[in-house]
């Protein structure tokens, strides 16, 4: 089977509107969490979020296009453009037909839907915007990328809550490895900052009224984030023969279902997903240097994930660096896996381990080296990135330098 290279990365999120700003923030351990501005959250139990800063759609799209594309699909398109430009793809008609697009989204364009429902339910308007349906559909990101770049190959969207974009990247990896696509654009995007969606999150009592402190004893929950990230994948040999810059390889992908509970995490499901990723790559746990954790900052996730990592890695768990970049870019749901894959790939490229920001108090239930608050210079040879979703659907990507 051909090896699969990552040759392009694009990212936009709370800690960077471009890939290189994102990299810089990861290195500096900069936290992008701030008071929410995109929705009126006065009186909410949480006031903070990780919003994309200084974003102006008109910098990226023509005025007429903006009406047609929800913010989440805009982020997908922006990240895809950046990733494809980064990979310096020389398009041919054949390549456009042999290129796959796989995107992840959790809530998709629900912000558009929320606005429309507000208009009819609350404001008593007789109609919603005619583009409500195409703006809301979860595949709008993939559709827009295909139109934007003229890509006509197999394209679809995966929705598995917080694992969406890891599943998307994994599917694209399978396509390229199997020879079913010569190129793939894969990742995810999300834009959740809308009144109704935030109300729904508030009701679950999992969002912190403070800030996101993964693995810290005084953690009080997750912080919602938004953004998008896309990768360009291609067969390693083709990438090398066209002289492309290669960030790293995706060497393994593991998936599992907890078959347990709709919101509570389990240890066994994540263990199976991590083991499947290692087996898929044909490597043992001892060669992993870094784990980009799911690390949401909820009491349950961080302790459960620690136990799962200990079970998979045994004694080697004490030699691993494990960090949660959600402490900086928030939990971007359907974009989370893609942003974290991008963070891992950029860390491999530049030789550093991104920190877990906002860390204060050691927790015996999370007794791993979680790289507190400051990034660390280190060569990463092999890393995994975990995504564990509500609904118990887990996806783990494995990268090698």
């Amino acid at each position, binding site marked *: 089977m051909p090896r699969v290279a990552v040759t392009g990365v694009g990212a936009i999120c709370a800690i960077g509107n471009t890939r290189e700003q994102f990299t810089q923030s990861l290195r500096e351990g900069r936290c992008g969490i701030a008071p929410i501005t995109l929705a009126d959250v006065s009186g909410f*139990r949480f006031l903070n979020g990780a919003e994309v800063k200084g974003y102006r759609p008109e910098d990226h799209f023509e005025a007429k296009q903006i009406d047609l594309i929800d913010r989440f699909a805009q982020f997908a398109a922006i990240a895809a453009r950046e990733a494809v430009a980064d990979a310096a793809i020389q398009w041919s008609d054949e390549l456009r037909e042999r290129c796959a697009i796989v995107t992840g989204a959790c809530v998709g364009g629900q912000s558009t839907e929320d606005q429309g429902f507000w208009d009819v339910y609350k404001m008593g308007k007789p109609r919603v915007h005619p583009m409500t349906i195409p703006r809301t559909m979860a595949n709008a990101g993939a559709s827009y990328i295909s139109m934007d770049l003229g890509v006509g190959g197999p394209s679809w969207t995966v929705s598995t809550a917080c694992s969406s974009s890891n599943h998307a990247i994994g599917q694209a990896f399978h396509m390229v490895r199997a020879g079913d696509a010569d190129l793939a654009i894969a990742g995810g995007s999300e834009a959740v900052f809308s009144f109704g969606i935030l109300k729904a999150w508030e*009701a*679950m*009592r999992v969002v912190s*009224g403070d800030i996101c402190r993964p693995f810290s004893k005084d953690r*009080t*929950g997750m912080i919602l984030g938004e953004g998008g990230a896309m990768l360009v994948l291609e067969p390693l040999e083709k990438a090398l023969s066209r002289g492309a810059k290669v960030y790293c390889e995706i060497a393994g992908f593991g998936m599992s279902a907890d078959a347990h*509970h*709709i*919101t*509570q995490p389990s240890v066994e499901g994540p263990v199976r997903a991590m083991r499947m990723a290692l087996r898929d790559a044909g490597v043992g746990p001892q060669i992993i240097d870094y784990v980009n954790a799911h690390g949401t900052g909820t009491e*349950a996730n961080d302790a459960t994930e620690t136990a799962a990592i200990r079970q998979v890695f045994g004694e080697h768990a004490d030699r691993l660096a494990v960090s949660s970049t959600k402490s900086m870019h928030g939990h971007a749901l359907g974009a989370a896996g893609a942003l974290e894959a991008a963070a891992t790939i950029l860390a491999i490229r530049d030789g550093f381990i991104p920190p877990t920001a906002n860390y204060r108090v050691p927790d015996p239930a999370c007794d791993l080296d979680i790289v507190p608050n400051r990034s660390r210079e280190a060569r990463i040879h092999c890393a995994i990135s975990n995504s564990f979703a509500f609904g118990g659907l887990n996806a783990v990507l494995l990268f090698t330098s």
Partner: protein
Amino acid sequence: MPSDVTEEVLGVIAQTQRIPRENITLDSRFEELGLDSMDAVNIMFALEDKFDITIPDEAAKQIRNIRQMVEGVQHIVDSKAVQ
């Protein structure tokens, strides 16, 4: 206790969780009633609705059994009456 609030809280738990009312006492623990943390969140949602109150996250996190839930609701209802 038992006060009206006690009766109403136990009634809400029975109704939302489909548990026979007679199986629930002030001393019942969540585990013996087969309730997990998400069930507790659902019960609190129903209680907020029934009593027209807001249960803060910090208070919600402390609740481990039925008695604490009743006392917590009573406390919020009382402070609301004072206002």
